[in-house]
């Protein structure tokens, strides 16, 4: 890599620097994204002076956490060239199972059951996609439908035990330490660090990129594609479960359709974050900032008293504009 740069640099330095810029932008879309985020925060401050304070930052992080975790699911599977449309149903499942089982078995076991169920659903996705080669879109969509149908039935089954947000979850995701630091950071930061580090340094992380970039090449190189996919979707299920717990904690409510509105935003956050929907390119940092951008956007429109319909239109326009700008940068280089 360095040799090719070295040979071509003297001849076309200006062209190369433009190309290098573009390449840097493509590989590190994070900087313009942070600028966009900063611009949105600035706009918010202009629209309502004095709103951007420590407790605003705290609550923004708190509300962005579930979305950022769901975006992690989407990032991992999108790197392999897939998508997980069951994350919302799985998150709702985990949140509700934890809330209902905790009243019977106690909170730690209830939470463990919830996360176990979430992982199991992810595993089923992975088996269908990895071994039977069902298209990820269809497999996860169908599993999402099954789970969405299962929850009302489950709700009736456990109606006697009731459902209450576990105190542990409420404190962990809804509460703050010394009044300002959202507790959810203590869960989110380790997860995020593990994913960010793992995608770069762990063998498995590199395999996700390899499978998404060129599956046949990866297979010829001896990668066990099936295993990589099964594990990716299982992790996605587990993370969706964590996101569901976070969501019940943040909203201090456990209902069976709690996470439904987060399905498309989870995809949107990843797309804004610069991960290619075809796989092989992107990273989690962009998705985190994408989730923050979407959250700030929502609060901006709340401040502007924009009605729901206008919010949706702006939301869609932002996704499209960012994705288009991103495609322009990457495809011309």
């Amino acid at each position, binding site marked *: 890599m360095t040799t090719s740069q070295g040979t071509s640099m003297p001849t076309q330095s200006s062209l190369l620097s433009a190309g290098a810029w573009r390449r840097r932008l493509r590989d590190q879309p994070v900087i313009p994204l942070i600028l966009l985020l900063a611009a949105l925060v600035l706009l918010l401050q202009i629209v309502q002076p004095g709103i951007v304070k420590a407790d605003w930052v705290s609550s923004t992080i708190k509300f962005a956490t579930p979305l950022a975790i769901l975006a992690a699911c989407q990032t991992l599977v999108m790197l392999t060239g897939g998508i997980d449309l069951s994350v919302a149903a799985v998150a709702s499942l985990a949140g509700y199972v934890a809330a209902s089982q905790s009243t019977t078995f106690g909170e730690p076991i209830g939470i463990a059951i919830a996360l176990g169920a979430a992982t199991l659903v992810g595993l089923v996705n992975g088996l269908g996609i990895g071994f039977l080669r069902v298209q990820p879109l269809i497999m996860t969509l169908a599993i999402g439908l*099954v789970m969405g149908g299962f929850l009302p039935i489950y709700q009736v089954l456990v109606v006697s035990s009731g459902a209450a947000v576990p105190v542990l979850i409420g404190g962990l995701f809804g509460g703050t330490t010394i009044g300002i630091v959202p507790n959810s950071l203590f869960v989110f930061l380790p997860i995020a660090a593990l994913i960010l580090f793992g995608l770069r340094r762990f063998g498995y992380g590199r395999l996700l990129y390899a499978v998404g970039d060129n599956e046949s090449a990866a297979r010829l190189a001896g990668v066990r594609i099936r295993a990589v996919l099964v594990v990716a979707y299982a992790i996605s299920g587990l993370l969706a479960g964590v996101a569901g717990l976070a969501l019940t904690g943040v909203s201090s409510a456990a209902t069976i359709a709690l996470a439904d509105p987060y399905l498309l935003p989870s995809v949107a956050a990843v797309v804004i974050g610069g991960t290619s929907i075809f796989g092989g390119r992107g990273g989690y940092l962009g998705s985190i900032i994408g989730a923050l951008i979407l959250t700030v956007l929502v609060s901006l429109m709340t401040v502007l008293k924009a009605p729901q319909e*206008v919010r949706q*239109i702006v939301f869609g326009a932002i*996704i*499209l504009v960012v994705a288009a700008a991103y495609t322009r940068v990457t495809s011309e280089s």
Partner: protein
Amino acid sequence: MSTGTAAPGTLRLPDKAGVLGAVRRGGWTLGIYLVLLGLIIYTWILNPRYGLDTLAMAALPLAFAAAAQAVVVISGGIDLSVGAMMALTSVTAAVLMKDASPEAAVGILILVLLLGIAVGMVNGALVVITRVPDIVVTLAMAYVWAGTALLVLDRPGGGAADWVKDIVKGNVFDLVPRATIILLVVVGVVWLPLRRSRLGLSLYALGSDPLAAFRSGVSVRRTKIASYAICGFFAAAGGLALVGTTGIGTPTTGDYTLKAVAAIVLGGVSLSGGRGGLLGPIAAAYVLAIIRADLVFMGVDPNYSTMIQGGIMVLVVMVAAYLELRRRRR
């Protein structure tokens, strides 16, 4: 195959290769119709008074949604805004038709269908211009169209001319449901001539291999936009079907986008493009609707029906994927 030049030859080749494929394609479509027939007979055993018109009415919006999705997927795209376009067209129709005369309603129907085409063309043009993957563009536009639908009408309301409501009800000669006839006429008038035409061939060519299509002289951009425009037309027909069957317009139409994807997969359309037709997805829409009705007759909690529908879908796609896998290994 030589790397020769004869353009007519390259044009005819997919047709010949399609003969073998047609058996398989036809097999799947035939299978889904047999399943539908079996389910209808089973439903009559459960409830001899069950009218096919009820089924046809219940399935009409989804059948149009499936047709819309099928056209785009056949030509290699996917449209996640089908449900939102149905919502937009249904509220537009319901608002305009509320106090309109029966004659004016005819004009409104045509206007709404044109609106659907226009909305679809916007989707297609954005895909072509931005070069962003179809799934992302239509995901973003789903928000835009759903928001626009809410701007037109923020809660279920509006109205429909009486003849629009009557036209989808009941049977012709006590035998064939009117809703089915409308469905077949609309799809037949639009799709049959189209499929035979140059554009129809281009749609399939684009779906099976964009590069080969481009090299064979297909205008990729124009074909792509056309596929989304046709999708918009069928989505508008689905929106009108919602107004006709319910009598009002609804700004949030439930999950027709994802259900339509489910229906086309059951109906034998390959998500990787280039394969399938519209008859399979339409039958699949009926199958999904009749399963729901059967579960009601069997006294099953309606909550189970979503789960069972999803479960059937999982099984079918798994079996289909397994068969495809075995075929490829052989």
